[in-house]
């Protein structure tokens, strides 16, 4: 069964450093998403991406964050200058593109990358 994969599973970084989290969505999916979940808190939407551009983003997704689809398979989240409060589990998700529904379809989540900022 196809699945979303994420690397690394755990990333430890120093405050102020840049990190890139990588995701390989399911191959025929066209919508991609990033979420984060701070330990013990709820899952928070960061950004959605379709047709090589951001389609929606939340207030959390400020200039510190960027997303990219550098090739036909990877989808990345870059955090430019990490802060202590960026420590969280980051989930990537993907979904198909059902015509006329704007990506409103079941999202398949990856296993997550645990980011620890020291």
């Amino acid at each position: 069964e196809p699945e979303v994969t994420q690397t690394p599973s755990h990333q430890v970084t120093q405050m102020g450093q840049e990190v890139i989290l990588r995701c390989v969505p399911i191959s025929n999916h066209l919508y991609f998403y990033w979420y984060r979940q701070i330990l013990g808190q709820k899952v928070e939407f960061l950004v959605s991406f379709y047709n090589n551009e951001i389609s929606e983003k939340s207030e959390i997704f400020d200039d510190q964050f960027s997303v990219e689809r550098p090739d036909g398979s990877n989808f990345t989240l870059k955090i430019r200058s990490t802060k202590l409060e960026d420590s969280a589990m980051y989930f990537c998700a993907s979904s198909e593109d059902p015509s006329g529904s704007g990506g409103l379809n079941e999202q398949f989540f990856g296993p997550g990358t645990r980011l620890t900022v020291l």
Partner: protein
Amino acid sequence: EDQVTQSPEALRLQEGESSSLNCSYTVSGLRGLFWYRQDPGKGPEFLFTLYSAGEEKEKERLKATLTKKESFLHITAPKPEDSATYLCAVDYGQNFVFGPGTRLSVLP
């Protein structure tokens, strides 16, 4: 302020003891409501999408229903493997908002 809440926060059931989880939302312009299951240390696993009031979806021991202000996830005769955190999420166009989840424990 648009909001998604879930109750109860935690629920302990005996195996076979049916119950319901609630998801209430105050967002305007609902495009869809989603239910997910999340096991510890893993990503959410999709269960259902509901689009309009009155809609119902079923999958094995789970049944999801939707009204104009809330959704219920009914669990019939649960088994220990149903133990997980159940999340609801709402898409209202500008954003995709998750509730805090209900942590379900099913005891053998």
